[in-house]
């Protein structure tokens, strides 16, 4: 259906360029805002980047904004711990769960699977109150484990791995048994290496999911030590009657965007591979 007509090419490009601009413009505005002094932004919004870039970013990274009391470095470390914890934890748990469901015959196996599957329909927000109660009873408020653990169970990832495991021929498992390997060996020597691309793809998605968590950290942390970056930015805005430090906030926002971008760039190849092909 692709036709070679010059005006069509021009049109496609025009649409693409407009699309890019629409998406890129807010990011550009954010960047511009992060390079000026607060007064300049407040009076008339500039179109071109200013000269305050180093000062603003240094202040964000080392001092933070106004009352918040946590530096962006601190927040980003927290966010990174949370994102890695969630991504790796989810992958680990899901791999094990899918392994059990696909390869072991036990009572209520399908019940387990359907229970996991049903939770797909419940977003975090729905079960946030009971989860909060549990976490609070376990004294995990204001802690990394509290931030990470409740978000680790993942029906989506379990389901994905289950589907992948089911495409692996049974004979591989039997070959390992004849070669003398048990279930643990089969998992680590065969399944894990074969799932490599799927794991990479999931890692990208889950890292970004973990990095972008907002509601859950907001619920369970009030100690600056545990602020994640998005929570921190929100706190920077809570200045009541006063003037928010927009230049610092914008700088923090720019900084907050960097890690997911890097993860995507570095894992792009693996990601596409994991989404499109399975190694068999």
């Amino acid at each position, binding site marked *: 259906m692709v036709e070679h007509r010059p005006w069509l090419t021009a049109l496609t490009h025009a649409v693409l360029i407009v699309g890019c601009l629409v998406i890129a413009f807010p990011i550009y505005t954010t960047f511009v805002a992060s390079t000026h002094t607060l007064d300049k932004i407040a009076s008339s919004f500039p179109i071109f980047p200013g000269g305050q870039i180093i000062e603003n970013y240094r202040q964000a990274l080392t001092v933070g904004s106004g009352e918040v009391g946590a530096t962006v470095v601190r927040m980003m470390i927290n966010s990174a711990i949370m994102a890695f914890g969630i991504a790796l934890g989810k992958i680990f748990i899901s791999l094990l769960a899918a392994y059990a469901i696909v390869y072991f015959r036990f009572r209520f196996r399908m019940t387990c699977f359907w229970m996991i599957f049903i939770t797909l329909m419940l977003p975090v927000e729905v079960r946030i109150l009971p989860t909060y109660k549990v976490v609070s009873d376990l004294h995990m408020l204001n802690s990394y484990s509290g931030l990470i653990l409740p978000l680790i169970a993942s029906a989506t990832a379990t389901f994905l791995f289950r589907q992948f495991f089911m495409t692996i021929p049974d004979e*591989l498992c039997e*070959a390992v048994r*004849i*070669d003398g390997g048990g279930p643990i060996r089969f998992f680590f020597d*065969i399944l894990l290496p*074969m799932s490599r691309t799927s794991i990479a793809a999931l890692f990208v998605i889950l890292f970004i999911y973990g990095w972008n968590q907002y509601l859950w950290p907001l619920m369970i942390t009030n100690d600056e030590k545990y602020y994640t970056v998005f929570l921190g930015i929100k706190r920077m805005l809570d200045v009541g009657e006063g003037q928010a430090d927009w230049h610092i906030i914008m700088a923090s926002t720019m900084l907050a965007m960097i890690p997911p971008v890097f993860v995507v760039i570095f894992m792009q190849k693996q990601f596409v591979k994991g989404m499109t092909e399975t*190694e068999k």
Partner: protein
Amino acid sequence: MANVSLNNIFKSFGKNEVIHGITCDIKDGEFIVILGPSGCGKSTLLRMVAGLEQISQGEIVINGKVVNKLEPAERDIAMVFQNYALYPHMTVFKNMAYGLKIRRMPKDEIEKRVRRAAEILELSDLLDRKPRQLSGGQRQRVAMGRCIVREPKVFLFDEPLSNLDAKLRVQMRLELRNLHENLGITSIYVTHDQVEAMTLGDRLVVMKDGYADQIGKPLEVYEKPQTEFVAGFIGSPSMNFFDAALSSDGRGVSFPGVASMPISENGLSAHKGQTVRLGIRPEHLTVSQTGDGVMQLNVDHIETLGADTLIHGHLGESDSGLTLRLAGVHHFEKNAVISLNISDDKLHLFDKETGARLGRGAD
């Protein structure tokens, strides 16, 4: 190096019994082929020997030791799967070495064994490749290499050649035969291909619906099939069958299109006057040049294969179809009449009800 005994093996999946008591003694170094149509339970039987399926009843004995409760790895067997089941992320070398590595064999010994197996199988140049970079035949060889390096007591093959193209299959068949002659390891080989069975096996186990219909040397099975099923299954094109009547003295047989054909043997007196199934192999019929053969075949159509000619037709005025196989190239017009003879020791008679062989050569 081991003998294997299957003692009255049964297998049920739930209430559904699929194998109904199979007994077979396999001698040390023997190559046994289990042959049967799909769904006859032959793979299940093999998997029970491997330890991949539980045995519902009966005993499997390897070298004097009952292995019913042993894990596959403890039975000292190696298996080649139909789809090879190579580990896709490992190189050829690692694929072959994996079983040895699990057994904690010293590295230099592993290296030595894999190199030697690779040499036997002509895989030496491919040791660093991944399975997906190999052709079907090469994968097949790697799968065999994985078995050889283990130096097991018993080799198990589950239709290993069925994923290969015809030409490669013939080549691999010969290689398998050579390999077995060189290593002399007891082998059990499952296939639905009768040519593989006839050429590879020291003995065949012909299975149908979970029963072993006949166990015997390939030629024995061909020449004296013990049941109508075995007779029809072995041989290509398959045997011609007719509903035939034994004469009242048991010395002659008649069937549609043929009024009477004398039978010289004596063993049939117990069945005289009965209706039986008569089997004639297409290749055992001879053309009578003088036109006074025992049956007259009206030619319907001809398949010329080069080495052979297959002639399909019907006998006399009846509608009993018959296939005739003649060596070399022959030309016949449609509706031509061919006069055929058959020596009476090439006739196979079977009980109409049970399908069991009657008369000469019956158990």
